C-alpha cells in the first residue's frame, strides 16, 4: 500500500475526522521531560531526555493533521511513513507504530535521539506555515521505539529464505548497520567486520551515553544478530584481511562504511601541547574506553578549565562531557555566531542549561604551555560576521588587532573529521577525491571497483547518523539489484 491508500483506510479516516484541525493545532507542543540540569551536569552516563509518557505521546500525536501531502516525509532521508506511525500512536497502537518505523529505519531508537529533526521532518511540518511549533516527530519516534523495546516484545523483521550469497560489511557504524539489516532481510548472509573491540562505530565511541545510552545501541545490534547478521570485531579490512581475501573467500559484494576516522586539527602554534586533543580522542577515551570509570585502565584528563573548539554536535558532546567530568568552566569556542552553529538546537539548549559558556565569534590562533609542555592558555582572535560563504552561512572575518588570552588546562579540538584512509589506501582501483572520500555513483552507491559499494562518512566526509543510514539502505537496494543482474 502506498501512502494515499494507507491514509484512506477506515481507521485513519475516522481518526482524522474525530477532531477539527483547529483543535489539533491549538494543542501546545509537548515538552520532553528532562533530568534537572544541575544534577545531570555531574552525572556521567544518565540520559538527559527521559522520554514521553503514553499520555503525552498520544496527545502530541493528535497535533498531527495527517496531511494529504505530508511534507515531513520529504524531509526524512530514509522516507519514514511519518503520518502512519504518528496516527498509530494517536490510536494507541504503539506496536504498529514501531513496526512502521522499522519498515524504513534500521535504528529508530537511535534516530529518535540523534537526528537533527529541526532540519528534516520537523523543519518541513505544516504547523510551521501556521506559525506554530512543529509536531515533535523525533520525540514520538523515540517513544514508539522505546515502548517496543521496553515491552520485551521486539518484532524481528521478516527475513527472506537464505540465498547463500555472502556479503561483507566494513565498519559497524550507522551506515554498515543499516546496510546489514536490509541485506539480511533480503536473505543474504551478512558478515560485518569491525576494527574496534566494540560494535556500533560512532554510536559507541563518539556519542556519549547521556545522549544515546549504549544499551539502546546494543539492543539494535542484537536485533540484527537475531536476523542472522554476523559480527567480527578486531578485524581491520585493508590490514588484517584484504578486499581480495574477502573475494577469494566467496564474498560477492562488499559495503564500505568505514566512517570519517581522521580528526582534523587547525595547524596552529601549540596544538601539540599536552592537554590539547581531538574530540575523537577525548570522546573515545570517555565513551569507548570508559576512562572516567575508576575501574578502567585508560587515563583521561579531567580539566577544570576546558575549551572545546567548534560548534557541531561533537563539540557539544565534548563540552558537556567535560562538565560531567568536573570542569568548573567549560567553554565552546566557535568562530561564527550561534545562528550558524551546525549542532542540533536541543544540544545547544541542553549545553546552556548545564552551564556551558559560549564564546561565539572567537577563533583560537595559538596555545601557550608551561615548562612541562602542558597547555595553560589559549589566544583567541575576535571575529565578526561577513558575507555568506559557499556554505550559505555568513563567513567569519577577523576583527583586526582584537585578541583575548584565556586560561585553560584542557583543549578539545572539534573542527571536523576527514575520511579514514585505511580503505582508500588499500583497495586498488578505487576512485578517491582530494579530500580522501570514496567516489560512488550517487544513486547506486557503487564505487569504481564494481564489487565495492560505499556510504556514510567515507563518502560524505562528515555528516549525520541518519544520512549514513540512508546511504546504507540505498546501497543495499542497489547491490541487491546488481547481484541479481549478474546471475
Amino acid at each position: 500500500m502506498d501512502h494515499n491508500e494507507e491514509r484512506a483506510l477506515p481507521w485513519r479516516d475516522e481518526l482524522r475526522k474525530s477532531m477539527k484541525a483547529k483543535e489539533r493545532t491549538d494543542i501546545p507542543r509537548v515538552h520532553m521531560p528532562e533530568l534537572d540540569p544541575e544534577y545531570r551536569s555531574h552525572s556521567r552516563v544518565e540520559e538527559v531526555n527521559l522520554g514521553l509518557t503514553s499520555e503525552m505521546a498520544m496527545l502530541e500525536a493528535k497535533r498531527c493533521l495527517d496531511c494529504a501531502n505530508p511534507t515531513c516525509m520529504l524531509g526524512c532521508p530514509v522516507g519514514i511513513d511519518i503520518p502512519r506511525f504518528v496516527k498509530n500512536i494517536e490510536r494507541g497502537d504503539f506496536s504498529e507504530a514501531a513496526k512502521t518505523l522499522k519498515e524504513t529505519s534500521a535504528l529508530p531508537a537511535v534516530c529518535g535521539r540523534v537526528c537533527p529533526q529541526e532540519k528534516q521532518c520537523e523543519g518541513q511540518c505544516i504547523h510551521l506555515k501556521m506559525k506554530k511549533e512543529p509536531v515533535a516527530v523525533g520525540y514520538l519516534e523515540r517513544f514508539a521505539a522505546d515502548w517496543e523495546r521496553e515491552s520485551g516484545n521486539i518484532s524481528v523483521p521478516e527475513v527472506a529464505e537464505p540465498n547463500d550469497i555472502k556479503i561483507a560489511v566494513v565498519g559497524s557504524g550507522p551506515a554498515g548497520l543499516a546496510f546489514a539489516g536490509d541485506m539480511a532481510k533480503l536473505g543474504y548472509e551478512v558478515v560485518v567486520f569491525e576494527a574496534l573491540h566494540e560494535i556500533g562505530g560512532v554510536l559507541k565511541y563518539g556519542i556519549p551515553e547521556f545522549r544515546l545510552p549504549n544499551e539502546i545501541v546494543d539492543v539494535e545490534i542484537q536485533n540484527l544478530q537475531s536476523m542472522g547478521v554476523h559480527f567480527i570485531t578486531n578485524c581491520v579490512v585493508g590490514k588484517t584481511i584484504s578486499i581480495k581475501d574477502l573475494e577469494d573467500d566467496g564474498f560477492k559484494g562488499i559495503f564500505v562504511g568505514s566512517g570519517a576516522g581522521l580528526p582534523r586539527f587547525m595547524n596552529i602554534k601549540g596544538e601539540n601541547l599536552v592537554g590539547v586533543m581531538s574530540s575523537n580522542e577525548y570522546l573515545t577515551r570517555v565513551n569507548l574506553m570508559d576512562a572516567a570509570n575508576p575501574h578502567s585502565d585508560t587515563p583521561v584528563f579531567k580539566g577544570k578549565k576546558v575549551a572545546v573548539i567548534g560548534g557541531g554536535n561533537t563539540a557539544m558532546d565534548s563540552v558537556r562531557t567535560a562538565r560531567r567530568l568536573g570542569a568548573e568552566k567549560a567553554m565552546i569556542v566557535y568562530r561564527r555566531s550561534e545562528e550558524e552553529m551546525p549542532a542540533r538546537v536541543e544540544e545547544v539548549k541542553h549545553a546552556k542549561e548545564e552551564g556551558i559558556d559560549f564564546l561565539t565569534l572567537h577563533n583560537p590562533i595559538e596555545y601557550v604551555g608551561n615548562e612541562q609542555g602542558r597547555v595553560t592558555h589559549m589566544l583567541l582572535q575576535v571575529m565578526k560576521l561577513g558575507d555568506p560563504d559557499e556554505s550559505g552561512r555568513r563567513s567569519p572575518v577577523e576583527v583586526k588587532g582584537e585578541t583575548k588570552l584565556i586560561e585553560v588546562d584542557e583543549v578539545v579540538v572539534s573542527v571536523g573529521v576527514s575520511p579514514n584512509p585505511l580503505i582508500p589506501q588499500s583497495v586498488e582501483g578505487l576512485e578517491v577525491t582530494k579530500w580522501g572520500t570514496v567516489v560512488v555513483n550517487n544513486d547506486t552507491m557503487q564505487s569504481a571497483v564494481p564489487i565495492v559499494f560505499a556510504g556514510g562518512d567515507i563518502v560524505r566526509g562528515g555528516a549525520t547518523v541518519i544520512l549514513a543510514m540512508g546511504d546504507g539502505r540505498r546501497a543495499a537496494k542497489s547491490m541487491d539489484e546488481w547481484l541479481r543482474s549478474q546471475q
Partner: protein
Amino acid sequence: MNKIISKEYFSANVIKFEVEAPLIAKSRKAGHFVMVKVGQKGERIPLTIADADIQKGTITLVVQKMGVSSSKLCALEAGDFITDLVGPLGKATHIENFGTVVCACGGVGTAPMMPIVAALKKAGNKVITVLAARTKDLIILEEQMRENSDEVIVMTDDGSYGNKGLVTNGVESVINRENVDLCVTIGPAIMMKFVSQLTKKYEVPTLASLNTIMVDGTGMCGACRVSVGGKTKFVCVDGPEFDAHQVDFDEMLMRLGGYRDIEREENEQYQSTIKK
C-alpha cells in the same frame, strides 16, 4: 580473544609471548604493530610485532613491564587469552638493498628491530646491529641478531658485557670506520633522539620507529601525533617509521609524559591491589 601459546622471560621485566593470531601472522610485515587490550576495562596499547610464524599461526610480542597495562599483560600465562588484539597496523618498513645499514636498538626496542634486521639482510644489505642496554642482563635476542646480521656490536652502560658505552658510541665507531648508507633506530625516545643527532652530524640517513601513546591505533584519535619536518603526522597511519632527522623528539618526549601523573597513580593502586 587470542590464546597465548608460550611465555618466556628475557629478564625479570621483559617477557616474550607467542600469541595465536593466524590472520595477523599472514598479513604482517616488518615494522607493523598491533593494539592489545587485557580485560574488559583494559587500555589499548600499541606493541610492535617482533616475529611471526605463518605455519603455526602465531605472532611474537616482547613486552616490558612498565605501568598497569603492560603489567596486566605480563601477568598472563601460556594458555591464557588476550582479550582483544588487532592488527597489523601502521606502514611496513620500506625494505630494499641500501648497501650498508646500521641497526641501532636499545632495551626492549631490540624486539621490533628483529624482523627489520632479518628483512634488510634478506634484501642483500650488509647489516651491522648495535645492541645496547644498561647492563648485561638486559641484552636480549643477541643470538637471533647474530644469525641475521653481518656483525653485532654489544654496548652496555656499565661495561658488564660487550663494550662499555652508549648505543651512540657503537654507531659512531661504525660510521668512523666505513661508509654507512642508512641507520635504523628503535628504542626509548631519548635514545633515538641522540642517535638521530649523531647521524645528522655525519649526514647518514636515519629512520626511527616511534612508539607514542595511542588509543585506537587506526588514525581515529590523533593521540599519537608528532611533528615531522614541522608538519603534524599520525604515528599510527603515517608511521611508525619516520625520517629521524625531521622528528621533533623534544615534543615527542613531552607528549609521552603527558599522562605520567595519572599513570603513576593508577599503577600504585594496581600494584597495591595485586600485593594484597
